[in-house]
């Protein structure tokens, strides 16, 4: 598993940064010092380059006096910034000194040796090159007076710096020319004590220098398959393995400063099983682990949904459309969501490696918790999770906590504070929003969160919860209260939330029946519609329907719940005279209405249910009833314009029970609520003429209600 590693920069290991950086710098320094004519080494030296080119041109034409001012310009421009010069400018400066020295020599001017000395100070290894013999002699004399040779022997043979300049181990192994005087060789290497050693170069001589680094700790090179693995040594994170140029294993990660003794390495990467390793270091040295392969830790989820094409999200990232199989779910806790415009499904669980599960995603009407206000030390996130869990069994409705980032983004984009819904509905709100404003914000927030509505939760003690629900399009919330400590309490809330909507249509005999003491059966007091067609008369007592005997109105109503509309049924009645009478009754499917203010109904949920009911209506009565009841729900929620729009789409004829007169009456009420009195009068007048219409299938007649309203209607 573990082996000694080659101690060199040339090995394929990532060593200390200085090693690689020094190589690059030294390579640049070794470039031949030939300025590129017409190509300035840097923008700042453009003038110097141009001057040099002109000086060189004149020099080459033997116009030495004319060349000198240009070379002076080059030197005056570059020399003051010698230490900061880029390599190209440095080369240019060297060449300028050399050319000026030669020009001066040719014109017998002073300063020749100074120029050569300055040149060698910058680059001691410079040579005379194509100088004339006499000029070369002067140059070599100057060099012999200023420059000596040195051979540096590093142990171990690693890169180092000399007077701050970097040299590779190979360069250091060759004799180097340096200015006579004091110099310092320095090196840093993982596992060694840092080196800084002075030495002296004597002009015209060869100096031998040996520099030995002291080993103080070990290093280990760790290579992983795949890359991107976090390396934790003795509980301390030491880095992440990098991607290698070639596919497969990672670049090795060098971990240093390892003392003698046993060490524990933990290799960790998301979606892979943790790999713990133990190794022992016997002495300070460079070691290498053979490549370590991590085993994947993923689960497979097969997702089947009630709706095809719904988007699947894992931890907020879209991963496909239903139905789908996700076979790379990393082990650990995840939130799987299935979202569509009609609802949402969430699954929070901790997945184990190799786990394979099928999720039946039943999309539910979703309300995103946009506000959580809780007293004490309870964290809002924990509070939200508790509420989400408590209301989980609410079959058709999902109250869930959206991701923090998603929620913050939605709230900030709508510029509403996090507690707007709860605070605004709380007691003593300084300036409550108008219903229209609340509806507008709720609708936009729900859309941003891909939910059907929004919710706020609040608690003074983290147990007694007030849940506020606002469907998209509603201006008036429903408020439920429950106790998180009491399973019965939150169970009731969940049941209320998830209860199916009351039936909107039902089979009816369109005839009023009552219970009469001492008279078993259902006594007819007003026969209309289907009952009338079957020959029922006031005073008749229904004693059986189909094969079921009827002892009371309650039994008749139960029976009606189980029969099919438009199917003839045998009917037995007892007449006022006491005689038996048989008839055939064909119940009809009729619309029914929701109560306007039923504390057991969650109207904000019904708003969404009924919009769906309109889309999926199976027949004209279903559709009419869905529109009618959606209108009623809008009325309950104060959406008067929406209510009128829905009611105007109801297509019911005039007749007994819930019929055109019912719609006219409700329209009259809605028009009155928004001050459209002429329209209210018109609608109520029509309703008052519908003598058989009722407010509900078993509700009061609307005609007297309409007449009474007309009496009190004031412009």
């Amino acid at each position: 598993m573990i082996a000694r590693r080659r101690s060199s920069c040339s090995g394929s290991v990532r060593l200390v940064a200085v090693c690689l950086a020094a190589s690059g710098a030294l390579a640049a320094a070794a470039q031949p010092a030939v300025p590129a004519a017409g190509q300035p080494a840097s923008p700042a030296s453009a003038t110097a380059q141009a001057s040099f080119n002109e000086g060189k041109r004149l020099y080459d034409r033997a116009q030495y006096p004319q060349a000198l001012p240009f070379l002076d310009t080059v030197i005056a421009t570059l020399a003051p910034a010698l230490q900061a010069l880029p390599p190209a400018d440095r080369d240019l400066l060297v060449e300028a000194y050399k050319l000026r020295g030669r020009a001066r020599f040719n014109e017998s001017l002073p300063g020749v040796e100074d120029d050569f000395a300055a040149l060698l100070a910058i680059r001691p290894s410079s040579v005379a090159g194509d100088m004339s013999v006499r000029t070369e002699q002067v140059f070599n004399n100057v060099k012999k007076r200023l420059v000596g040779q040195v051979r540096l022997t590093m142990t171990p043979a690693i890169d180092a710096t000399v007077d701050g300049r970097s040299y590779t181990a190979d360069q250091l192994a060759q004799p180097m020319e340096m200015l006579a005087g004091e110099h310092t060789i320095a090196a840093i290497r993982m596992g060694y004590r840092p080196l800084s050693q002075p030495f002296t170069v004597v002009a015209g001589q060869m100096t031998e220098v040996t520099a030995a680094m002291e080993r103080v700790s070990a290093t280990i090179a760790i290579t992983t398959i795949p890359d991107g693995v976090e390396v934790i040594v003795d509980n301390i994170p030491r880095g992440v393995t990098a991607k290698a140029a070639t596919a497969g294993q990672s670049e090795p990660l060098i971990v240093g400063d390892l003392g003698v003794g046993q060490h524990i390495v933990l290799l960790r990467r998301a979606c892979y099983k943790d790999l713990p390793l133990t190794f022992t270091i016997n002495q300070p040295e460079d070691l290498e682990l053979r490549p370590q392969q991590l085993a994947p830790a993923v689960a497979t989820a097969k997702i089947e949904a009630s709706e095809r094409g719904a988007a699947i999200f894992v931890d907020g990232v879209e991963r496909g459309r239903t139905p789908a199989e996700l076979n790379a779910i990393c082990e650990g806790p995840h939130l799987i969501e299935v979202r569509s415009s009609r609802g949402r499904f969430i699954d929070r669980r901790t997945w184990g490696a190799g786990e394979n599960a099928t999720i039946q995603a039943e999309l539910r009407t979703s309300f995103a918790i946009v506000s959580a206000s809780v007293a004490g030390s309870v964290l809002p996130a924990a509070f939200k999770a508790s509420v989400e869990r408590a209301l989980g069994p609410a079959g058709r409705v999902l109250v869930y906590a959206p991701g923090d980032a998603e929620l913050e983004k939605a709230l900030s984009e709508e510029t509403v504070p996090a507690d707007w819904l709860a605070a605004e509905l709380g007691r003593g709100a300084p300036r409550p929003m108008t219903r229209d404003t609340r509806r507008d914000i709720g609708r936009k927030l729900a859309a941003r969160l891909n939910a059907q509505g929004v919710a706020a939760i609040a608690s003074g003690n983290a147990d007694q919860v007030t849940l506020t629900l606002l469907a998209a399009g509603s201006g008036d919330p429903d408020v439920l209260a429950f106790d998180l400590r009491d399973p019965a309490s939150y169970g009731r809330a969940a049941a209320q939330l998830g209860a199916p909507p009351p039936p909107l249509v039902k089979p009816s005999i369109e005839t009023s029946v009552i219970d009469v003491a001492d008279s078993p059966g259902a006594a007819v007091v007003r026969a209309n519609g289907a009952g009338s067609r079957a020959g029922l008369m006031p005073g008749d007592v229904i004693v059986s329907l189909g094969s079921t005997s009827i002892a009371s109105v309650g039994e008749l109503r139960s029976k009606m719940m189980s029969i099919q509309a438009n199917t003839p049924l045998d009917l037995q009645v007892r007449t006022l005279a006491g005689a038996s009478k048989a008839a055939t009754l064909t119940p009809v499917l009729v619309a029914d209405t929701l109560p306007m203010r039923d504390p057991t109904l969650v109207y904000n949920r019904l708003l969404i249910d009924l919009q769906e009911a309109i889309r999926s209506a199976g027949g004209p009565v279903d559709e009419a009833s869905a529109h009618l009841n959606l209108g009623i729900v809008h009325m309950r929620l104060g959406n008067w314009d929406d209510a009128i729009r829905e009611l105007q789409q109801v297509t019911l004829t005039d007749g007994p029970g819930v019929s055109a007169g019912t719609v006219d009456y409700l329209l009259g009420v809605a028009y009155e609520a928004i001050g459209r009195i002429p329209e209210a009068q018109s609608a109520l007048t029509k309703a008052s003429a519908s003598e058989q219409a009722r407010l509900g299938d078993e509700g009061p007649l609307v005609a007297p209600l309409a007449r009474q309203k007309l009496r009190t209607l004031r412009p």
Partner: protein
Amino acid sequence: MSRACIAGIVLLAGAALLAQTNEETLAQRQFLQARSFATQGNYQEALGDYQRVVDTYPGSSVADNALLELARYYFEIGGDGKRAASLVEQIKSKYSTTESAPEAYIIAGRIALANSHQPVDLEAAFAQFDRVQGLFPDAPAVPSALAHAGEARRLQRRLPDALERFRRVTTEYDTSPAAAAAHLGAGMVLAAQGDPIGAMEELQRVRNGWPESREAAVALGRASILFRLYIRAKSGPPYALSPDVIGPPRADNVRALVTTPNGAVYYATESAVGLLTPNGGRPPVATRPRALTVDRAGRLVVIEGSALRPSAGPPRLLTIPQVGKTPRPLDKIDAAVVTSSGEWLVMDEDEKAIHRFDAAGVHQATWATARVSRMAINEFDEVAGIDRDSKSILIFDPAGKVIAKVAPKGPDYEYANPEDVAFDAFNHVYVLDRTAVLVFDCSKLPRAAAGPPVRTPAPAANSPIVAVYGEAGAIRRGSAFTLDSAGRIYLADDRAQKIQLLR
């Protein structure tokens, strides 16, 4: 300010906060304990604990609730309306913004209704109920207040107003507990407005929506009454004689029958009082009962000699004061009815007037100058009596003035020997002739004088007779009768020597 001073203030504030928290906790514990006692029926302990909450922790969050519980107890169980009124006034003044305040208004209204059904009390009650929706429009008590307001208006005979309030409950709060009462009230109004079919439908809604409720049972009885009178009577006899044996196998000389509000039916012969139904407990001992009636609490009262003997409590000896003489006892009381205010209206065979006594039996005044043999009273404190001389049925208003009269002969009815008279829940007047029962609609009776209208609005003037039951041989010689809450008639037939049930 020095650090020590600041620290002292912080400590004091902390201590005050802690004390406040402790006080609230203690108050809540005491309140819950009281409620627990009340649930167990241990009212003595409950009252003590509630009172301690009120006295010791008046600033706690449950002080108003404790006051409300006390008020409820004194009104509903203790029968101490005055004390209850004082408690609700405390809530209204000291805790006017709490959730108990709307309930306090409702109790205040109910106390006024319980005082009497006189106009001043009805108006006072209505005002209390009506304030709830104005002051606390979102309170859970609103539907209950509306239903009570409707009832007050109904008793004032302001029927459209009453119906409007009942309808608000039944359409806007149809699943609230108050809706059952509102449907019931709406049914009563519809019947009074001449729409018995609508009334029956409304009453059935109570049974459909709240089948196990007390109101459902009441609705059944009332719908049955209307069904007999307005459906069955249209094409046949409204009643059928029950084949069941009711009461003793032989019942001679039955002088009176009475039904108590809990459904117990008693009868009185010349020498005893008996019970016909199983739900009345043991009949009282009486040696020479002359008549039977019920008091304001719905308990049986035996009229014997010059005394009204309630089934619980001391008898009330009735005497007429005489100037300079010893008060004259009433020895031959034929009939006595109690008004909604608890006063007694008493008729003695030897008297030429109906006398008014207070609840304690102290003579107040002559109520009406008339000689009637039997009397019945309705919820409006209107009294029906059989005029001994003309055999007419006289209808008196609450002040004792005759406002209507049923003559023995009309265009489509006739009776000869009226023996007894009764009201049903809809204020139909039932007259027992010797061989028939006749039912009249008071609203259609010719009014005797310019008094307040009996119905608002007045229905069309047509025959007042609603139904007649007099099947050949069914009633041979009726001597007394009573109606139960479902309109069943228990009828004593002297000739048949038995008590019969018409249903």
